C-alpha cells in the first residue's frame, strides 16, 4: 500500500552529505516529497527529515540503500512509530482593510499567528502537524494567496 513515509536520518556533518542522500534516492528512481536538514545538539551530526511516498517494499529498499552510505549513521521510518512532527508554513494573503479582521479571526481559530501586516496583505505563520497545516491552507483558498513557503516536515521519535 502506498503511503507517505516520514524518514529521519542522522548523518555526519560533512560537506556533500546532502548531495549523496538526494543523489541516491533520485538515482534509484524514488521520489522525495519534502526534505529538511539542520544541525543537532552534536556538532558533528546533522538531522535530515524527509517524506517519501511509496509502499513498504519501496521504503525497505530506500532505508537499506541509505544505510549503505558511509556518512549515514542512523535511519528511521517514523510513520508507524510514536513520533512528533511539525511543519512550518509562511503564507501571505491579500487583505484589504475590511478583510483583515476576518483573516485575523481565522488565523486565531487555527492557532496561526500574524507576523506581518502590509497595506494590501497579511503574512501569517503556522507551525503544526502536516495535516493541520494543509487544512489551514485550504481554509485560505477563498482568499488570494500571494506567496507561500512550507518547511517540509521535521520529526522526532517520541519516547514511551
Amino acid at each position, binding site marked *: 500500500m502506498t503511503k507517505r513515509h516520514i524518514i529521519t536520518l542522522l548523518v555526519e556533518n560533512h560537506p556533500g552529505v546532502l548531495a549523496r542522500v538526494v543523489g541516491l534516492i533520485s538515482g534509484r528512481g524514488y521520489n522525495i516529497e519534502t526534505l529538511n536538514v539542520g544541525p543537532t545538539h552534536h556538532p558533528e551530526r546533522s538531522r535530515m527529515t524527509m517524506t517519501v511516498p511509496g509502499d513498504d517494499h519501496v521504503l525497505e529498499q530506500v532505508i537499506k540503500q541509505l544505510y549503505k552510505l558511509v556518512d549515514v*549513521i542512523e535511519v528511521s521510518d517514523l510513520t508507524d512509530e510514536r513520533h512528533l512532527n511539525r511543519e512550518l508554513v509562511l503564507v501571505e494573503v491579500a487583505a484589504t482593510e475590511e478583510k483583515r479582521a476576518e483573516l485575523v479571526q481565522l488565523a486565531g481559530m487555527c492557532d496561526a499567528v500574524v507576523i506581518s501586516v502590509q497595506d494590501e496583505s497579511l503574512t501569517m505563520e503556522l507551525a503544526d502537524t502536516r495535516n493541520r497545516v494543509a487544512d489551514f491552507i485550504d481554509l485560505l483558498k477563498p482568499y488570494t494567496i500571494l506567496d507561500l513557503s512550507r518547511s517540509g516536515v521535521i520529526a522526532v521519535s517520541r519516547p514511551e
Partner: protein
Amino acid sequence: MTTETRTGADCVIEGLREAGADIVFGLPGGAVLDIFSKLYHADDMKLVLVRHEQGATHMADGYARATGKVGVCLVTSGPGATNAVTGLATAYMDGIPMVCISGQVPSHMIGNDAFQEADTTGITRAVTKHNYLVHNADDLPRIFAEAFHIASTGKPGPVLIDIPKDVQRAATTAAATPAVNLAGYRPQSGYNPEQVKQLADAINTAKRPLLYTGGGVIAGNASAELTALAHKANIPVTTTLMGLGGFPETDPLALRMLGMHGSMTANLAVGECDLLISVGARFDDRVTGRIAEFAPTAKKAHIDIDPSSINKSVAVDIPVVGHAKDVLAALTDLVDTRERGEWVEHLSEQKARFPLAYDEKTEELLPQYVIDMVYKVSNGEALIVTDVGQHQMWAAHFFKYTAPRTFLSSGGLGTMGYGLPAGIGAQAAFPDKNVVVLSGDGSIQMCFQELVVAVEHGWNVNTVILNNGHLGMVRQWQEMFYGKEYAGSVLKQEDRPANEKMPPQANDEFLPDFVKLAEAYGAIGVRVTCKEDVVPALEKAFSTKAPVVIECIVKEEENVYPMVPPGASLDETILSMV
C-alpha cells in the same frame, strides 16, 4: 606514532604502504605530479604507466580480482578522472575492492572552471562505494586508512580519493596510523544463528534443493565451504557469470551457469527445485529472466553480506545476512547427509540430454572451438579474462572453471574493453600464470593500446581475438529480435548497410590488421584462419615468453545458445533458432 613533518603527497605513499599496496597503475598529469614525484623515490612500489586511465582502472580491477587484494590506480584531474569513471563503475557493479587516487586543481581554484577541473567526487558519487575530496593534508592518513577499510570490507567496492594540488604540497604532522572509526559504516560481522538454523531445517526437509551462487562466494573466499556443503547434503550447484570458479564445474553436482545464456539443465532446475539457496548472488535480471516466474514453486533463501541485496528484486522466505564463508560453514555443520538420488540423477540425465555443445565436426572455424581448445591446450589451468559479448558467454560455456579467481569478467556493467587491461593487471600479480584474454574484434579495440604495457614489463599475457567481423552479440539480437536490421554492428568492410558503406579500401580484408597492430606494440601477432592451425598457435603462444595476440577469423553467423529471450522466463530457454 609518526609526527614528523611531511607533505600530503608523502602521506599518500605512506597510506599506500600502510595498506600493503605495492603496485600502482597510473598516468600523470599536472594536478598529480607531486604524488608522482614521491613515487619516483618509492623503491618498494611498482609504478605501471598505462596509456589511458580506463586501462589503469581495469588493471587495478584485474589485479584485485586475481588476488583478492585492493587494486590501486592513480590519475590526474579533469580528463584523467573522467576517463577512470567506466573502470570505477565496472568495479562498483561487481563489488571489486579498489582505491582510485585522483589529483584535483588547487583548493582555491575549485569551482572556477579551472584548466583540467572536473567535479570528480560529484561525477563518481554514483559509481563508488564512497569518495573523498580532501580539504586538509592532516586528514590524509585517516582518509587512506578509511578508504582501504571501506574498499575491502562488507561488499567490497571502489573508493575514490580526490586530492587538490595544494593539499598534496601542504605540510602536516598528522599521525601515520590513525584508528578507523566510522560511525556510519558498520559492515556485517557474524550472522543470525536462528536464520541459519531455519535454512538448515529447510535444506533437511527439501527434496529438490538447488544452490545458486554468485560473486560473493569468490569475494568471500568461500569456495571450500560451498563445496563442503554441496557434497555433504548433495545439493546441485548452478553459478552466475560472476560466480564461475566458485564451485568446480567438473564436479558431478555442477549444473554450470544459469540465466539468459545459462545451461538448459540449470535453467530447468530453477523451475523444478523446491528450495533455492542463493549465496552471494543478487537476482540480477540477466539471471532471473521474467522475475515473476523465477523459481515459482521454490522456497527461496538468500545469503548475502549486503542487507540491501535481500528482497531487492525477489521476495525471499529465509534471509541470512552474513559472510558466505561463515554462514556456509555453519550450515554444513547443521545439515544432514543426504543422497537425494532421484533429484541428482534427474539432473544428470538433463545434462546428458542438453549439453553445452557446438558442432565439433564442421570444417569451419567456430569461435566455440577456439575456446574449447584454449581449455584443452592449457589443461584447464589458464586464468581466463574476457571482454564482453558473445565470446564472453562462450568463455563461460566451453572452459570449465575449477578454482576461484580464474575467470575475470565484467558482469554487472558489461564493459567492452575490460579484458586486455584486466588481464595485464592479473598477469602483474602472477607473472608466471598462463593468463589468456578472450576478446572479440569489437571489444579489443576499446583498450588495445594497453598491450604495450604488457610488452614493456615482459608480462606474457596471451590474447585470443575471436574475429567475426561484427559486434557479435548486437548482431545476434538484431537477427533474433530486430528483423535483421544490422545497423552499426558490421565491423568488416563488406556487407554493410547502404548508409554505412565504405569506399573500397586498399587492403580491406583485415581492417584493422590485428597482427600488424600487435607487432606495432612490440607483441607477437598471429592470424589463424582454419581449424587445424588453432592448437599449434595456442601451444606456441603458451610456451612463448612474450605477449602473443592470436587473431582467429571465425564463422560470422554463430549465435550464443541456449538463450532466454529478453523478458521471457527461464523455462522459455531456447536451444537454437530452428
